């Protein structure tokens, strides 16, 4: 048991009170630490590896939602250290009853269950969890030092799925968690059928826009099948916005609605959550015959779909970018919107965010070599929105008494003029999309960021933003 003031620094795979730990972790307990509630309140200091140190094979565990049912503070601390080292999000339940309650209240991917705990033991808690329909399939892993067969059988009979030995062996801990949060536990049902048929496939640890673990759970852990499904998604959905626009142009609302419906289903099965939600909204708008809202939603769908398709292709093709796309990637980073940029006025912030996303969408479309006519339509849309945005922004800044409003208005006119000019030249082919975006990124988008800083002291209605910090930076 750790005591106050003791420094818990582990030498490589050192041993402390029967608890093993890997060499990357260091814990320190300070005077006055509340050992009972160490997880949340103790001012302990922990050095953990940066994200890029996460061993490649466990990268997929990054972000996993784990419930740890464990009453012993030292065990808690070691488990948290090991789990957080690979980016796992850990919540703690200090007894079995609390574990049942927390499992019902949140969408965990796995529960690690201690055996002996106060109030309610692990076996009883597992039985109660299995009585809940929603939790019937949730993996529950016994953490136990008891290797006796009768004990293990009791765990399985209660509905537990697997075992992790104590003291923890980090590799075993990660391997067992990985097996169960990526659907590997279901693979037995299918006897590796899919992988045998579709061959080897290697998924990266993460693909932006996808919940890879949830996707793999849908495919019973069969990576090759998931990869096949992702490729099929790209093939079938890359022209979806164009097909939908064509259906609208043909006045065929039923066909347009079905396009949205198919995208919803396809993105659901691969676990592209954001696209699925937006596709559902698009489908609903079209089903109601609301074309205006449908157009709006289509833009939003596109803003997520295009980067998703690009991310899947990049991740699965495995080749690194050539010079051109490398250049574009640099600009994609430039157009990345951060919450920290916000000026604190909800309308201006949402418009700026939207314009950044739209810019990113177009860059993504450009990167995935979309037809020029499609890019032209998107660029027209972006320019129109920029001009509209300047107008509504000026209404707000003048009304709020922002002293720089008149100068900004003049600048907006210049930017509008130049944007319209360049978009026209892009349309006629005398300016390339790269040149157009050089201007947009360097002038228009940079202007958005600059004005957000100067607006902040006058317009911020968001209480959580510290005004001084942004004011100083400016």
């Amino acid at each position, binding site marked *: 048991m750790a005591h106050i003031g003791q420094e818990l620094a582990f030498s490589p795979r050192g041993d402390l009170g029967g608890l093993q730990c890997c060499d990357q972790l260091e814990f320190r307990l300070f005077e006055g630490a509340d050992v009972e509630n160490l997880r949340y309140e103790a001012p302990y200091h922990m050095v953990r590896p940066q994200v890029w140190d996460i061993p490649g094979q466990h990268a997929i565990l990054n972000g996993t939602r784990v419930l740890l049912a464990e009453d012993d503070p030292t065990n808690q601390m070691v488990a948290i250290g090991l789990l957080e080292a690979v980016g796992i999000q850990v919540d703690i339940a200090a007894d079995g009853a609390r574990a049942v309650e927390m499992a019902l209240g949140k969408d965990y991917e796995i529960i690690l269950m201690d055996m002996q705990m106060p109030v309610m033991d692990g076996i009883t808690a597992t039985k109660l969890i299995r009585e809940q329909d929603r939790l019937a399939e949730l993996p529950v892993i016994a953490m136990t030092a008891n290797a006796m067969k009768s004990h293990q059988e009791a765990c399985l009979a209660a509905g537990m799925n697997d075992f992790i030995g104590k003291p923890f062996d980090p590799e075993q801990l990660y391997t067992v968690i990985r097996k169960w949060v990526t659907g590997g536990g279901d693979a037995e049902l299918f006897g590796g059928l899919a992988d045998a048929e579709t061959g080897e496939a290697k998924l990266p640890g993460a693909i932006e826009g996808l919940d890879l673990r949830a996707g793999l*759970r849908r495919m*019973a852990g069969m990576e090759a099948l998931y990869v*096949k499904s992702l490729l099929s998604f790209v093939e079938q959905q890359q022209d979806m916005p164009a097909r939908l626009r064509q259906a609208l142009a043909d006045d065929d609302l039923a066909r347009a609605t079905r396009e949205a*419906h198919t995208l*919803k289903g396809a993105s659901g099965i691969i676990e592209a959550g954001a696209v699925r939600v937006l596709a559902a909204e698009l489908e609903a708008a079209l089903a109601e015959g609301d074309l205006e809202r449908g157009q709006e939603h289509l833009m939003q769908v596109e803003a997520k779909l295009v980067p998703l398709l690009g991310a899947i292709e990049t991740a699965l093709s495995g080749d690194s970018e050539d010079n051109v796309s490398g250049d574009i990637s640099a600009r994609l980073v430039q157009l990345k919107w951060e919450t920290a940029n916000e000026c604190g006025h909800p309308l201006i912030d949402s418009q700026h965010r939207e314009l950044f996303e739209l810019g990113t969408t177009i860059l993504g479309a450009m990167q995935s070599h979309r037809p020029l006519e499609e890019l032209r339509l998107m660029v027209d849309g972006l320019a129109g929105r920029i001009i509209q945005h300047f107008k509504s922004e000026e209404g707000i800044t003048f009304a709020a008494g922002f002293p720089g409003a008149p100068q900004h208005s003049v600048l907006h006119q210049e930017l509008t003029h130049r944007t319209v000019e360049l978009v026209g030249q892009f349309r006629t082919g005398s300016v390339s999309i790269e040149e157009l975006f050089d201007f947009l990124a360097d002038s228009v988008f940079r202007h958005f960021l600059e004005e957000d800083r100067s607006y902040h002291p006058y317009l911020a209605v968001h209480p959580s933003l510290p005004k001084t910090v942004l004011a100083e930076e400016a």
Partner: protein
Amino acid sequence: MGTETNRAVIVEDSSQMRELIKMALRSSGITDITEAENGADAIDLIKSRGADIVIMDWMMDVMDGMECTRQIRAGIEGVDPKTPIILLTGMVSEESEAAAYAAGADLFMGKPFSLKQMFNGVMKILRDQQCEAVTA
């Protein structure tokens, strides 16, 4: 359970989805699998080859799954009106579930499904079929 004699028909307009359903069917031991992209083609297929299980999407071009189910149940020459049907939909609600069962579906399943759910659904239908065969 003699599944090697089972013939399955998948009726679904997305090839991505058909692939997954095929995987679940093969895992349950069914190897005779044919595919259609809408309800009208499905009826032609069932007439010509017969089917022991049909897995069908609701929303499709030409003839949707709901209509196809209704027609099969109402009786089509050359099609067993009791052919087991699993109806899939992305619109999961109590009303759509009630409508699916009212049309004559044996099992209603929401999308997105997992391979395991699909596998369990197919196994359940095959078991029910066996029970009926025994009691009949």
